[in-house]
């Protein structure tokens, strides 16, 4: 069956370190993969999109990699800050199921301590 998996355990890191979050998937051939941030009581906010033919994408302190062989995406936040504390969601759209129908992982909670 199709699955998207993110670390269910919260990630706790010290301010200034790099946070790395993992998104693994099985039985998909994604056209692209997206990362979102969600704060408590609010809707998800789009961060980055990476296409199947791209290896890496950057935006300010954020970096996403996409390995279609390993079926994995890594999301990095460099020089992390307490304000980066939130839940991060990955989502993908299968190449066989276009039309914007995203499948979301359950999210990983990140806590950055001062």
């Amino acid at each position, binding site marked *: 069956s199709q699955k998207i998996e993110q670390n269910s355990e919260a990630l706790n890191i010290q301010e200034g370190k790099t946070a790395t979050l993992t998104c693994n998937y099985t039985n998909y051939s994604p056209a692209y993969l*997206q990362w979102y941030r969600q704060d408590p009581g609010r809707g998800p906010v789009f961060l980055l999109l990476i296409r199947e033919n791209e290896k890496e994408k950057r935006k300010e302190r954020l970096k996403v990699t996409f390995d279609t062989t390993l079926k994995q995406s890594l999301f990095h936040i460099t020089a992390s800050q307490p304000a980066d504390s939130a839940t991060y969601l990955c989502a993908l759209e299968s190449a066989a199921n276009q*039309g*914007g129908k995203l*499948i979301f992982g359950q999210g990983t909670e990140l806590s950055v301590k001062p």
Partner: protein
Amino acid sequence: DAGITQSPRHKVTETGTPVTLRCHQTENHRYMYWYRQDPGHGLRLIHYSYGVKDTDKGEVSDGYSVSRSKTEDFLLTLESATSSQTSVYFCAISGGTGPGEQYFGPGTRLTVT
């Protein structure tokens, strides 16, 4: 923030009553989506729309219907609410030249007693 509003923001209703949630956008985006978010399940797509009067089912569409008579409004109806439909409901939009990234509304917390 993208111009998306949801109403109501909170609602408590009784089992068996009909409920309609409204999503309104001011971005003129083509695609609109309804999700529900539950602990242990993450975000799951209920229905989506790819244009006025054009809708399709998502992963968890049973017990829900939708309508889109105008570009800016996408309605989600629970014909006869059940306790299993207690959840937080999010509307999202996307547009431009294709689907791509989605922009979410603030959510509606629905409790069915």
